[in-house]
């Protein structure tokens, strides 16, 4: 995934700069307004350099939705793992998310396979109505609340079992806080994250 970002006094100006820099025709351009700008700050536009990749992702998902008997919108942004693709469907969101996001995992797996069959360089994370994004935010809030309590009480705390991906997200966030340390313990099948004060009192 390649893109460039440009600033300008207006969105139009920022877009024109980006188009010129990227050598891309306006007719083929896939871009988004990162910041519409205001009185004191410039407008910011993100222009994707491989618009055909975004087209392929969008077409694949729209065709899949059509076969499911629905329709929807596809929003594509850069994410930590290639493209972050958020889909909103007409009436099929909860069916495609499923309990604990299990159906979403299946949906993502199939879309990824279909897209990568046509272009193996494309990496993407699929979301439905920001389900994963919301879950991530909840998880981070929980982790930050635990960290605060550990600092207030000086006692370590255990976080309920998480998936490997969730543990990675929490560790990455809590690593920024030098007053605490995070380690894992294994109890039977479960792996727990322990949040502890940085120094033993």
């Amino acid at each position, binding site marked *: 995934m390649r893109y460039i970002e440009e600033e300008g006094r207006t969105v139009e100006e920022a877009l024109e700069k980006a188009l010129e820099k990227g050598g891309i025709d306006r007719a083929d351009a896939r871009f988004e307004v990162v910041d519409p700008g205001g009185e004191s700050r410039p407008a910011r536009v993100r222009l994707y350099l491989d618009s055909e990749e975004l087209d392929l992702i969008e077409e694949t998902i729209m065709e899949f939705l059509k076969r499911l008997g629905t329709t929807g919108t596809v929003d594509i942004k850069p994410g930590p793992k290639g493209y972050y693709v958020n889909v909103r469907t007409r009436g099929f969101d909860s*069916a*495609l998310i*499923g309990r604990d996001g299990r159906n979403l995992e*299946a*949906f993502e*797996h*199939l879309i990824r*396979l*279909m897209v990568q069959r046509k272009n193996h360089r494309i990496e993407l994370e699929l979301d439905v109505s920001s389900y994963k994004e919301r879950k991530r935010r909840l998880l981070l809030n929980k982790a930050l609340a635990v960290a605060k309590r550990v600092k207030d009480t000086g006692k370590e705390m255990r976080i309920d079992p998480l998936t490997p991906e969730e543990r990675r997200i929490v560790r990455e966030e809590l690593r920024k806080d030098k007053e605490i340390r995070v380690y894992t313990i294994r109890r039977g099948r479960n792996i727990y994250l322990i949040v502890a004060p940085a120094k033993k009192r």
Partner: protein
Amino acid sequence: MGDLKELIEYIAKSLVDHPDLVSVKEIPGEKTVIYELKVGEGDLGKIIGREGRTAKAIRTIIAAAAMKKGKRAVLEILE
């Protein structure tokens, strides 16, 4: 539930090297409809996936689509 058959066909055809060898047979039952999916010999691995992940994903999506219609569907992949 004719469109579930089409959905299975569509998913299978987009994953294999020989879409022309994909066929789906619908076997209606009282409560549950069984779908038998057949693909070309060399394509079975593509439908099943590493550790059966792709087959599981197809089953999950088909079950979700069926439930949306208030039905039950079972997908069998023929070897």
